[in-house]
């Protein structure tokens, strides 16, 4: 749509928008900073906590945290840190003397710090899960023993001998996180700055502006957003090169002790704090879902009620069924496609090709622009909104996550298992079903669980491709969120979080039930 002239004026109009530079800067910086912080937290935690009680407990917590939808975390986190939030109430008025909330700009700060920390809460569990899935391939235990027998302190040893090999395995997930964080909409709406908002939030506003000319500008802005995301990825890549250069000397300087205490303390504290914050956010939502009147500075609601749950109960059934149906179909399809792709790659001995970038495209392009294009394309082809279209739309976003959760484990499975099976007279097909899949059960289930969580969290694909005719728990939750009733938001966010949780618990329980206790996805010790 639109001639060259309209195109040109759209760009002019975009660049004339007040605060565009700041919007771009905040999107770029919060995306990079949150990823760096989340990675730092995860890496230091893994380095500092191997085999400890903390390690085991947080590993168990990671998947439930991953399952909570972004918007729910954002709402809960905003309520935690706001001047009238849980933390302020904890110290008011007996310590702070605040009878009324202080007028301080904490949430929605112009630097995007609240947004950055909110993003970290969601990114850290994802990166931790990806790391835990990759670690068993690295003989980490043996490397550590060796390094410690050479005199290296445990945390420093991990950083020097395991991390350099782990990083390449989690690089793609990290890139996915950067792409997501630079273009995130829902968290930025709740936690991000407002004068001006992040680029992604501005784009959403322009796309839904009744004034048609804003839509051309929104398309131009979507192209700009893509460039911002690519620039962030490029910057990260450059930082990677720099870090590699700078760390080269440190890795082999023979220093066995220096920084150990600092790394250990920050490593354990970092993820513990992040987990506690996410947990507190969830508890805040839970409290609201049963809260009667609740005024500052009361730490607990003055009264409790089940009204909010009761009234939502009637409206839950349909959306729950739709959510489960779409999530299972899209994730099931994605799992089949990914396994088929990887198995073919193994059999034909092809190396992963450049066409893989196509797979990641939906993660790179701003969702709203991408989906609006899809809607127009589907309409043009005469495809009317329906369940199948929604499933296909979800597939586009589930597929890359399932792929990046599974690919490394799949490729690194020792091929000798299959050689042995085949040498015992088992056909290739049977070897795939009887040997490879059972051995890969844990990573496969983790990938499926991630896929389910991604599908359940999708708002725009469900709403746009289904024209709202396939209401899911998430579309209902987002619609209700626009009404700002925190009690109802609490109810629906908990339901929304509960669904993927069921998926994750199944992923943990199923292998045990199938008789492979050591291959439970979240505490894989050794593999193959």
């Amino acid at each position, binding site marked *: *749509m639109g001639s060259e002239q309209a195109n040109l004026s759209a760009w002019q109009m975009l660049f004339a928008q*007040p*605060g565009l530079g700041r919007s771009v800067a905040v999107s770029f910086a919060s995306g990079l900073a949150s990823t760096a912080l989340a990675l730092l937290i995860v890496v230091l935690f893994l380095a500092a906590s191997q085999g400890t009680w903390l390690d085991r407990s947080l590993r168990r917590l990671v998947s439930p945290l991953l399952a909570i939808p972004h918007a729910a975390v954002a709402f809960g986190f905003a309520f935690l840190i706001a*001047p*009238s939030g849980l933390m302020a109430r904890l110290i008011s008025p007996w310590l702070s003397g605040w009878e*009324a*909330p202080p*007028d301080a*700009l904490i949430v*929605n*700060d*112009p630097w995007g710090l609240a947004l950055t920390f909110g993003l970290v809460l969601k990114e850290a569990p994802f990166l931790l899960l990806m790391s835990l899935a990759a670690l068993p391939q690295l003989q980490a235990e043996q490397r550590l023993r060796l390094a410690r027998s050479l005199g290296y302190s445990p945390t420093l040893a991990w950083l020097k001998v395991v991390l350099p090999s782990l990083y390449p395995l989690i690089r793609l997930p990290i890139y996915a996180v950067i792409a997501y964080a630079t273009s995130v909409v829902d968290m930025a*709406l709740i936690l991000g700055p*407002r*004068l001006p908002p992040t680029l992604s939030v501005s784009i959403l*506003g322009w796309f*839904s*502006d*009744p004034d048609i000319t804003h*839509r051309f500008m929104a398309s131009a802005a979507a192209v700009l957003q893509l460039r911002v995301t690519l620039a962030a990825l490029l910057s990260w890549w450059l930082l990677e090169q720099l870090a590699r250069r700078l760390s080269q000397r440190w890795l082999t300087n023979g220093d066995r002790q220096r920084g150990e205490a600092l790394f250990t303390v920050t490593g354990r504290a970092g993820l513990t704090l992040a987990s506690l914050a996410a947990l507190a956010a969830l508890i805040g939502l839970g409290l609201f879902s049963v809260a009667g*009147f*609740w005024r*500052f500075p009361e730490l607990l609601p003055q009264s409790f*009620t089940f009204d909010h749950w009761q*009234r*939502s109960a009637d409206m839950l059934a349909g959306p729950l069924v739709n959510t489960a149906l779409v999530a299972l179909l899209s994730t099931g*399809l994605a799992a089949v496609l*990914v396994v088929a*792709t990887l198995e073919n790659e193994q059999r034909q001995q092809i190396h992963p090709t450049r066409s*893989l970038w*196509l*797979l990641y495209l939906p993660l790179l392009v701003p969702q709203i622009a991408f989906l*609006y294009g899809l*809607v*127009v394309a589907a*309409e*043009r*082809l*005469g*495809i*009317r909104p329906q369940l*199948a279209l929604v499933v*296909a*739309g979800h597939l586009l976003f589930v597929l890359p996550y399932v*792929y990046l959760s599974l690919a490394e484990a799949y490729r690194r499975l020792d091929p000798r298992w299959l050689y042995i099976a085949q040498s015992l007279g088992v056909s290739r097909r049977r070897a795939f079903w009887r040997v490879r899949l059972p051995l890969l059960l844990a990573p496969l289930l983790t990938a499926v669980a991630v896929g389910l969580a991604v599908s359940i969290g999708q708002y725009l694909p469900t*709403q746009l491709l289904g*024209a*709202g*005719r396939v*209401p899911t728990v998430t579309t*209902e939750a*987002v*619609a*209700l*969120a*626009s*009404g700002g*009733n*925190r*009690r109802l938001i609490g109810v629906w966010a908990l339901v929304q979080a509960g669904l993927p949780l069921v998926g994750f618990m199944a992923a943990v329980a199923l292998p045990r039930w199938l008789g492979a206790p050591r291959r439970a996805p979240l505490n894989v010790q050794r593999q193959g």
Partner: protein
Amino acid sequence: MKPRSALATAVALALVTFTAPAVAAPDPQEWESVLDAANGQTVYWNAWGGDARTNRYIAWVAEQMQESYGVRVEHVKLDDTSSAVARVLGEQQAGNDSEGSIDLIWINGENFAAMREQDLLFGPFAESLPNFALTYPDENLEVVTDFTLPTEGYESPWGKAQITFYYDSAQTDTPPQSIEALLAWAKEHPGQFSYPRIPDFTGSTFLKQALIELTDQDEALYAPVEDADFEEITAPLWAYLDELHPHLWRSGRSFPESGPNLRTLMSDGELSLAFSFYPTDAAVAVMEYELPESVRSYVLEGGTLGNVHFVAIPYNSPHKAGAMALANFLLSPEAQAQKQSLSMWGDRSVLAIQQLEPSDQALFEQGESHPAARPADALSQTLAEPHPSWMNALQDAWLERYGVN
């Protein structure tokens, strides 16, 4: 299978589809035939879904429509009405002129203006609806006027909104009664008032309210903005806001995201004076435990902006008969009375209640009142909405001045 073919499969999957036969638009003049055609249709009603009570009311309407007319009503819950506008526009661009996915939209103001301008609406139909006469449009021009634009039968009135202020009477004795007084009040109570960030709808309405009170050239606001001297007319508004902002919540360095966000901030005790477009908002919030019992509502002494909200039918709706039957039912005394009752939703009726049959009038008397709701006589103090072009111009000018802190 390569990833590329995986993607292709995904698209192919989407291609497995069917298309429904197109239905010719019925003539609203022949109401019996409309009802006949409506029977058995499914109407997809796209309406904002941010309020549980509205949703509950629409669910009740759906039950009634199924029972009385055999029409299935599906509430498509939106987070923003403009996404429905975008959808119809997209369908038009793609050449889908008869099988649109939306049959009825809850709409008014600039969204209506935009859809009319792009010729995206079906009509005229509203004035042919049997129940439309109950609004007595000749005496109540607001049911045929939307932000100064004549509706010309392209949308049917549904409910009434008016800017209503509310405050906690336990904390504030004398809330400000005018925009001027608001400034003085804000200076005395720094950080306890704000308005939603522009271009939010409620926030923009606050700008218009302030402009109407501050300018002495009111008539210019009811004509397109292009015909007026924007700089001169709005100068008092910017002078006022420059003075007001340092005394707002967060010193005007951030603004609440939306109208409902104001209510949440009131609930948290961060604000002690707020406003809403829904006159019963505060009362409902008290019933939903969000606000304390001591909250009271009022309108400014010189009156506040009010408008009517409507339902409209997209030009490419395949179920226009069902949509008209629904729009007509929404205008029935029974549906309007249910809507106005505080225990259901609390949205004011567009019917001329005093002119209804006594038995119908009685329906409206069942609704209970609530101390936090504003007084019933406030309706007379309604100011009309300016021309929609003012909204855009004000939004752009505001963003230019205050959009970057």
